[in-house]
């Protein structure tokens, strides 16, 4: 029952997001058909507007849009005249997702490792090293790190290709550039959460009953400390797999990240709507999954809403 309810709320959320985006989008001044290369005769513009249903009154455009959305048809792109928004997402998402998952993996594995080490060696040398790495990771933006990586690994040492997409080698540098910040964030999160847990009474109990410190850390420490990190990984996962404007631009990756930004500059209405809806669907769905996974990680959390 709870799951059905959650699911309906999800649909409602997506509808609200889509409607709000539609309204806000219509408020941006400008026109998808304006550009300096071709300021066109009125009738020609009318022909083009008709092609995209933009000649209809706005409420009708809205109804048409929601109707198509319900059938998973996100409409044609205005900027890229020959492709639909579905095409754009279908061809761009795999690259963005691959890159995002690789980065997420690195961020989680090394972030957790760094965080745990820092917590276990609290206020000692290894703690400081880990936290310096984390702070550098948070403060150096990816658009600085990326050219730096390219300059050394590709231009100076000739180890990896500069940019573009096509093989695992191509994905190494962008993965590193993209993973750094979330890695640092995960490490800091894990450190404080772990410190918290390691001061709890049940850890002392475990120690007193003679468990090896390895077992204590693994079975009692990490297991409890990881919970807050999981809730943070959800949104991180969504933002990583839906592509990033900067990294995709610098490394010429055929992902969907740039469409989130470019579509607004081009007033490409269907793409603005499409990317937003796509993002919110993934986000809402991921949050839903995370809710359920809490229950699996921590049996104390019940999958019922109040009153049920």
């Amino acid at each position, binding site marked *: 029952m709870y799951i059905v309810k959650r699911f309906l709320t999800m649909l409602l959320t997506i509808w609200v997001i889509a409607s709000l985006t539609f309204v806000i989008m219509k408020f941006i*001044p400008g026109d998808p058909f*304006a550009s300096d*290369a071709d300021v066109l005769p009125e009738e020609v513009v009318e022909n083009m507007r008709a092609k995209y249903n933009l000649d209809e009154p706005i409420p009708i455009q809205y109804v048409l849009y929601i109707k198509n959305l319900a059938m998973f048809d996100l409409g044609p792109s205005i900027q890229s005249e020959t492709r639909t928004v579905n095409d754009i997402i279908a061809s761009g998402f795999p690259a963005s997702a691959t890159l995002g998952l690789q980065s997420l993996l690195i961020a989680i594995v090394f972030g957790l490792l760094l965080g745990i080490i820092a917590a276990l060696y609290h206020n000692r040398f290894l703690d400081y090293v880990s936290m310096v790495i984390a702070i550098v990771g948070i403060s150096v933006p990816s658009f600085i790190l990326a050219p730096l990586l390219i300059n050394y690994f590709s231009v100076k040492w000739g180890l990896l290709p500069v940019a*573009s997409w096509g093989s695992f080698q191509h994905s190494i540098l962008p993965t590193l550039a993209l993973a750094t910040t979330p890695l640092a964030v995960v490490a800091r999160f894990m450190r404080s959460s772990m410190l918290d847990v390691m001061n709890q009474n049940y850890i002392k109990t475990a120690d007193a009953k003679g468990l090896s410190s390895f077992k204590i850390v693994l079975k009692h420490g990490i297991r409890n400390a990881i919970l807050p990190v999981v809730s943070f990984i959800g949104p991180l996962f969504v933002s990583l797999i839906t592509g990033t404007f900067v990294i995709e631009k610098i490394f010429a990756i055929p992902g969907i990240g740039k469409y989130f930004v470019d579509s607004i500059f081009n007033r490409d209405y269907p793409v603005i709507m499409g990317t937003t809806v796509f993002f919110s669907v993934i986000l809402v769905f991921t949050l839903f999954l995370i809710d359920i996974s809490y229950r699996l990680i921590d049996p104390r959390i019940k999958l019922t809403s109040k009153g049920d």
Partner: protein
Amino acid sequence: MKKGFLALVMLLTISTVLSGCYGGGGDEESSTDSKDSGEVKQEIVVNAMTEPPAIDPALATDTTSGWILDHIFEGLYTRDKEGNPVLGAAKDVKVSEDGKTYTFTLREDAKWSDGSQVTAEDFEYAWKRVLNPETGSAFAFYMYYIKGAEAYNKGNGSVEDVGINAVNDTTFEVQLNSPLGYFDSLLTLWTFYPVQKEAVEANENWSAEADTFVSNGPFKMSEWKHDSYVVIEKNDEYYDKDVVNLEKVTFELVNQATTYYQMFKTGELDLVMTLPTDVIATERENPEYKEVPYYGTYMYMFNVDKEPFTNKKVRKAFAMAINREALTKNVTLGGETPAYAMVPPGANTPNGDFRENGGPQFEEKTEDAKKLLEEGMEEEGWDTLPEVTLMYNTSENHKKVAEAVQEMIKKNLGVSIQLGNQEWGTYLETTKQHNFQMARMGWIGIFLDPVVNLDYYLGDSPNNRTGWVNEEFDSIMAKSKVEQDQEKRYEMLHEAEKILLDDMPFMPVYFYKNNYLVNTQFEDIVYYVNRYPNLKWASKSAE
């Protein structure tokens, strides 16, 4: 706890599965063997920067799509190495006495990439497709010179009345409303390219993916990985295939200036354009560096309906008060040419270059500018000049230019102007609504004739946002379009430009330049002044 690790393991698995998603690939290794085989692989990798929005003759409106279209299609006219229009898919043309009817005879050996004949029906179909209101073609208005075309496109006429007719397989007849002096030049534009009727009718989305392309140019579409690269290969069905040397051209779509610059440096790209401004100074000495005029004008429009630019003398004073040499040498840095007129260099006339013949239309003179400003203010009865805001669309480069101009006007005229900027979409709307005093604009001629540049300021042109309407200018432009005698036609255009620059509804700043880095192993790359480099004749020599 186990579940947490399970999630990690799952992530790992998904990631491995997805690593099949890098797409393409494979080609990288094969290109490194070329040295062993002794023969030079005739392949080039160039950077096209952005995903071409529409590689479709009827829908393309941008230079990137046009760049690829120019290589895979060919119109009735094409261009020789010097950029002059020469017959392409047509082998002969007859123009009627009154200059209104053109009868083209197509080559028998003009073939589509699938081996079938390029017929007059294909041309008729392609052109009527452009004009069909349902196609929503932005460049349809370039066909309005054809009889009945405008009415049909605007929904007031029928397709039967359009003067485009396939008489038989090889005879194609076009009727114009009135004679047009530059029709041959116009026909080199991609909007007039043929498309294969069967291919387009069979699949409405034929131009969205590589495998449904049928084309008739020196190259044919081979692979299109969206947002990543486009590959074209030599078209063996092309009638003039012997002049084509390259077997394969790859257009990479890398949009970040420092990235493609580094890719050139590591040899991943053979040709890049629009270099990062900070490297131009050092690269200028490099034999790989190339600077080519680009057929466009960077300018500031004056709103002649808003004070103080209601006064002609004030407009002139502003135009004369800046130092364009200093601006291009020290600020823009791309080798741009200072502009003292509207039409850029590059338009050939029977007597040579139009710009050279016309010469500069005004001079920068600080003293005269000051005097003009005072006179203008006196005429209007102003004690102080109304406040001026110079608008530009948000961009680092436009900002640099605007700041330099602000400084120069302050120094030379003693007038402080404000700067304002808006994001491009909003900016276009603002200028369209006439809501500015002085605003930046750039205009690139899509085909090489002064008429394209001068038409910008016609009273009824949708581009003309200055509010300036001059009947004399409009009527000379109209007359020039029907003038059959080329020499007289250019004289009229010179006259029109004089009127325009005398009234000065805008101030020209500079004529554009394109800069490139090109691997020196490549020969016979042709640089047209209003297109990206043409590779039809290019070849790669041994190192």
